[in-house]
């Protein structure tokens, strides 16, 4: 059978213009993400990274263009087989649910009018928790988790839905370096299992070191390709409107903020911005 769902790219944006109400945030985006790709979306605060993810989920107002997920046009309904992990901070961590219960909620769709979860559903949730190294934490409350464990919990909730395309909004923001590695290792393991991942980040050096493809965004797409080609002073100037230096170090690039005050420490040159909202 040659249905579009089997051959189409995981994600295709064509001439997408979108925003909120009459305010346009995204201007004419063309982006294709094939199955099994791992893409990092970068850009300054307010450049529309979250809005791109929300447009894919039919949450932003579309002004023009099309969005297709696995070959199906996205109109008002959220496409199937998509997992979404919003930026941390939008939910109440004191909500009376355990890690396992949060993940089980991800399976609400199937037995939607049955108020309990079946044994098979529980087994499945525990399997996913186990895969993500959370088996021991399944009865913890969210408040008792570290940032990385919390991210993995929400990843697990997306995965129990059999998501094939994962949309992750700043999964490595506001965490320490070890947690960042923890989250990235998880994402990369999922990618190796064949999942398609689109994530947003402020961390250009993380993108350069770990992601095969970078898309630079500033209302429009300013560059798209492997980080070593995309992360150039010209592109960065166009994306961020600020001068940045790019150092080539053993085959990979390191982006440094071209501050006049002495040489920056290479490992911490682009600290993640603390978001106001």
């Amino acid at each position, binding site marked *: 059978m040659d249905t579009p769902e089997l051959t189409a790219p995981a994600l295709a944006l064509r001439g997408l213009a979108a925003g909120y109400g009459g305010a346009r945030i995204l201007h004419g985006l063309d982006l294709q993400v094939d199955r099994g790709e791992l893409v990092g979306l970068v850009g300054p605060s307010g450049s529309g990274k979250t809005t791109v993810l929300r447009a894919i989920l039919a949450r932003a107002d579309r002004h023009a263009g099309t969005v297709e997920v696995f070959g199906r046009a996205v109109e008002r309904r*959220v496409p199937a087989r998509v997992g979404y992990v919003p930026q941390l901070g939008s939910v109440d961590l004191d*909500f*009376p649910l*355990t890690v396992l219960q949060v993940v089980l909620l991800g399976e609400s*769709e199937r037995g*939607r*009018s049955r*108020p309990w979860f079946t044994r098979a559903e529980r087994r499945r949730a525990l399997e996913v928790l186990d895969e993500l190294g959370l088996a021991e934490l399944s009865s913890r*409350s969210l*408040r008792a988790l570290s940032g990385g464990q919390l991210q993995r919990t929400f990843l697990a909730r997306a995965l129990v839905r059999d998501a094939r395309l994962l949309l992750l909004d700043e999964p490595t923001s506001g965490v320490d370096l070890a947690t960042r590695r923890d989250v990235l290792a998880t994402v990369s393991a999922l990618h190796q299992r064949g999942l398609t991942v689109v994530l947003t980040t402020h961390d250009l050096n993380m993108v350069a070191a770990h992601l095969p493809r970078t898309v630079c965004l500033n209302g429009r797409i300013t560059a798209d390709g492997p980080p070593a080609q995309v992360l150039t002073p010209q592109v960065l100037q166009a994306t961020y409107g600020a001068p940045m230096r790019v150092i080539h170090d053993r085959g990979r690039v390191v982006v440094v903020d071209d501050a006049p005050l002495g040489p920056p420490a290479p490992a911490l040159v682009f600290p993640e911005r603390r978001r106001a909202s």
Partner: protein
Amino acid sequence: MSELLLVPLEYAFFGRALLAGLLIGAMSGALSVFVVLRRMSYIGHGLAHAVLGGVAVGVAMGVDLYVGAIAATALAAVLIDRVTRRRGLHADAAIGVVTTTIFAIGVGTLALVPTRVNLEALLFGNILGVNRTDLSVAAAVGAAFLVLVVVRYKALVFTTFDPEVARVHGIRVDRIELLFSLLTAAVVVASVRVLGVLLIAAAVVLPAAIARLLTRGFAAMLALSTALGVLTAVVGLYLSFHVDVPSGPTIVVTGALLFVLAFVGTAVAGRLGLARARRDARPGTIDVDPIANVSR
């Protein structure tokens, strides 16, 4: 002792009130969990004021008390839902705008059209007035409430916890939110006779507030909150009978006393736990699991 419990039952009105109280207590107890976790504690207060507006207009137009009440709260629930969706406005603003307007229309109507409404009974609840219609309304609302909460349980929990992701998982979040508003409106209408307009707000907050202090899981919180709703209603109704005070105040004060007990009790338990941890943490014996300190 048993006389205190049995004598009131010799009066038919008290039997009806008790039955209505059980139903209303269970519903408002269960509902309060969602109200508290969604931080919409004033929705009960607002909708109850809309009831008053609706009753006033209804009585002035010569229709049944319930017709006005149902029409006004349903309208208020839908309007609150609409206004909340507008970006920049939250539920609290929507509740304030919509329900106060309906209340004002009702108060104005009462001034213009002379009617014989027992305002005190409406404001504070009156078990003497519980009739068959009240009981039927409570039973009908109770049945619908039970079915809808059971059938939409997962969606209600998911939407309350994380509406953005719930939507991605195929839940019609908009509909669930409207359903929640309408359920609240129905519970408020059914509760007016026993609780009174001014005291409903407490009944859809107190049980969950107590349960929140005493439980950790969602299901446990829901069960305890429902039980507490029933308990406070029953105790409050007996109190109302024996001390001859309107039922609304006695039910709310009973709930408030339980809240104080739970609040002080959990505070003392927390202090004792801290003291024990400090005693156990003598030099050389420290073995603190950092996570255990964070969780409650």
